[in-house]
């Protein structure tokens, strides 16, 4: 059994009827690299740039691929202890509560108002 990341990439690639070589050429990698990515049981080392390119070529959501590759998007690297604590707390909530909180936060952020002061996100 391949890793979840590999299975996701492969199933999407096959759905889109894209050959190994075609995907490899489009993302600037060798076909053997794609084979390893798709076949390896362990999640292989893969950069965010490569995942971005794969997501673009296969019309996949990068936010779906990144956790499968056990990666955090660069812009989400915590910038304060509060952000780390929030991440931990949210992680402890069940999925449905996380969804509800996400909706609440999105509504909060969508509200018109003055932008938050610099450095205090």
């Amino acid at each position, binding site marked *: 059994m*391949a890793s979840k990341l590999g299975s996701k990439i492969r199933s999407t690639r096959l759905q889109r009827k894209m*050959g190994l070589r075609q995907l490899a050429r489009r993302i600037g990698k060798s076909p053997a690299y794609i084979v390893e990515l798709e*076949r390896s049981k362990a999640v292989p080392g893969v950069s965010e740039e490569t995942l971005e390119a794969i997501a673009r070529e296969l019309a996949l959501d990068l936010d779906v691929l990144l956790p499968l590759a056990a990666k955090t998007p660069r812009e989400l690297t915590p910038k304060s202890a509060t952000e780390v604590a929030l991440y931990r707390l949210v992680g402890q909530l069940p999925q449905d509560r996380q969804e509800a909180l996400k909706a609440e936060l999105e509504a909060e952020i969508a509200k018109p108002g003055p932008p938050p002061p610099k450095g205090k996100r």
Partner: protein
Amino acid sequence: MKKTHAHPHECLEGLTLKSEWTVVRRIERPPGASGGHFSCGYLVENPRGKKGYLKALDFYSRLPASKDPARALEPLLKAFNFERDLLALCRTRRLSRVVMALDDGAVTVPGMAGPATVQYIIFELADGDIRSQMKVADRLDVAWVLRSLHHIAVGLDQLHRIGVSHQDLKPSNVLLFDEERLSKLADLGRASHQGTEPPHYSFTVPGDQGYAPPEALYGAPLLSSEARRRGLDAYHLGSMIASLFTTVAMTPLIIMGLETKFHWRRWTGNYEDALLFLRPAFADAVDYVLAEVPEEYRREIGEALRQLCDPDPDHRGHPRDRAGIGSSYALHRYVSSFNKLARTAEYELTRAHDDDS
């Protein structure tokens, strides 16, 4: 100045050899090619304009540094003479899908300090090896892949018919000729000949370990030598299917799908137990390859792949041949099958081309 620092086999440019071959220039070895320490290659040409590839071997220049030159020389000469005799046999029997040796001999390089005699073999000049085509194609050229498989199977079958097993079939040992439309097997350096003991007789894996069948890596009890050699060629032929369609050989495709504890480097159990996890990993690897094969060829390619690369050497080969009294690893059925598939693909290609124009 160059000659005082270089080994004699690196200094053949400009020399005229027997049979009037002239050494034109050195040809860089493609990345991944084997035999680099003692050999290098040159483009040669004869007065009739025929070109060839000269493989120059350096046996003698390092001897003064050896404590026991006679012992040091023995395996090198044995291997060289063994390969040279096999090549002569292939030439006599006119094997059309094995790279032919046009000439061989020895030349003494002038102006060298110390032993300066270089042995060489001149081969027909190839356009390159099959890896160049495998990698450049953006989309798989199915007709070319199937025709290559057919040529490779013919080459192995021709060798088997004269009692020779190649034992080191891999993409870098398949050379392309005739504007890359004709594939031939090269490098008999690890081959064996029925009735003679090859220099590498005792090796569990005579060729490249990256292409070895799982039973060799997991230390399975070996079948009789002759059966083992034919079984190895059969496995390698199946592995070429995987390589041509995915650019990755069958063994790494199987191993990639295993948990680390089942990797052959860690496995301490017997092969029978290893088959319990190798079989599903193999089935998965076959599915992986077949997903890259166009649907109209999938059934027959799948059958060939499953039969040729079965992790259990007792179950390897065509079922009809396994049941018969001849060789379990006979390849003639695969020759026919690949030829038929290649013809179909070539016909489809021509038809598509005609429709376009």
